[in-house]
């Protein structure tokens, strides 16, 4: 079990949630104008979740660090592209972070296939995502909502989101039709959305 679990923000008390914390949207518009101090504040706010999801997907802390660096560079470069009408700043950031981590996984799979060998040593002390998701209240909420899914929905969401399998890979490896896995993912996300939406 991992113990060095980082909280997202330095909010006092257990009530800290993504909605608390600084106004990330306002900070991003300052970043878009080239404000270095605002970028530092953005870093403080998003580095932990970006690093966290990259490490969950990639499992290797060194690669997760590289991806975190790339993601932050992209945030700096493209802050002007963030459009509040399209969603929250954290959603924008998390999509970029997850996408970068997944791209790395897919590129590695391709090169592993070329070498006919996949040799990533297991990172020490890293456990199942479900177990690492435990330290903060936010993580507890997510864990509870994941627990409210059916087992097959949960498996579909965890394999694709946290472990980086494509839905077709996951379907083939679980021995279910593609369409079944697609449905499980979507139904699972709808249930998660409803569950988490009620628990901001």
């Amino acid at each position, binding site marked *: 079990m*991992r113990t*060095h679990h*980082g*909280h*997202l923000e330095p909010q006092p008390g257990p009530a800290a949630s*993504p909605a608390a914390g600084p106004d990330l949207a306002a900070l991003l518009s300052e970043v878009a104008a*080239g404000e*270095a101090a605002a970028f*530092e504040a953005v*870093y403080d706010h998003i*580095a932990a*979740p*970006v*690093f*966290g999801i990259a*490490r969950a997907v990639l*499992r290797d802390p060194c690669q997760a*660090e590289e991806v975190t*660096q790339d993601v932050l*560079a992209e945030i*700096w470069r*493209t802050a*002007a*592209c963030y459009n509040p009408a399209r969603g929250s700043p*954290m*959603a*924008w950031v998390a*999509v*970029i972070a*997850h996408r970068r981590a*997944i791209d790395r996984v897919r590129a590695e*799979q391709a090169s*592993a*296939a070329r070498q*006919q060998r996949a040799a990533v040593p297991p990172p020490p002390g890293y456990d*199942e*995502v479900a177990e690492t998701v435990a330290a*903060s209240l*936010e993580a507890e*909420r*997510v864990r509870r909502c994941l627990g409210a899914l059916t087992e097959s929905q949960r*498996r579909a969401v965890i*394999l*694709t*989101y946290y*472990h980086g399998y494509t*839905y077709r*890979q*996951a379907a*083939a*490896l*679980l*021995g279910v*039709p*593609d369409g079944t896995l*697609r449905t499980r993912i979507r139904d699972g*996300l709808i249930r998660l*959305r409803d569950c*988490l*939406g009620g628990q901001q």
Partner: protein
Amino acid sequence: MTPARPHPHTLTGAYALHALTGPEAARFERHLARCPTCAQEIADFAETTARLADATAATPPADLKQQVLAAAARTRQLPPAIHQPTISRTRRAARPASATTLLPRRWLVLAAAVLALAAVIGLATRTTGHPPAPGQAPSRQIAAVLTAPDATMLDARITTGGTATIVMSRHAHALVFAATGLAPLPPTRCYQLWLLGPHSDTPAGMLPGPQHGPAGPITTTGLRPGTRLGLSIEPAGGSPQPTTAMILNVVL
């Protein structure tokens, strides 16, 4: 063989989790541009997945911050842009050059063939090592390998045709094997998996499933360092030792 193209509406979830392959994602984005309902669903799912990401939050190494700030100081920013669809923008921007060299994912070419859970359970007796417990165990066993902290995936071409996909956990001494596009065999022959060791070869199961469609999944336990995974064509019913040349031979 081309993959069956699912109706775009059913792909919103997989798209939001970045679980589509490149060409599928590109097709879906074309649909997304004229489907406000899908776009709204994707936007909602992005809020949901942000929470999933948040739940993994972990403090990165302290020196990362200075590196990031220093890199920003020497990086030119994009000017404010006319708003494009958020998701397609981030997808394009996030794609590294190496991703364009991805091999064709033929092993993902799955026909409509259904491998019911019952079939997987039926496999339990054919896996090597410890047989899984009854009921959900085989599917759990597969999931356990797929989600193992050290799970690694590779695909390999089978010399007589078809592609194998292997996910392996050294820690769990286990792997999951699936194959697509296998060449059809006469009824008197079958595909057999082997664990090839330095001193001896161990049967690791017979491939189930239609021979030209997807075959598997099959789980194999008892991996040891230096083991290779082999596949050969054997008389129906299998052999105690390989009797023909390996058509797949992968270092694990």
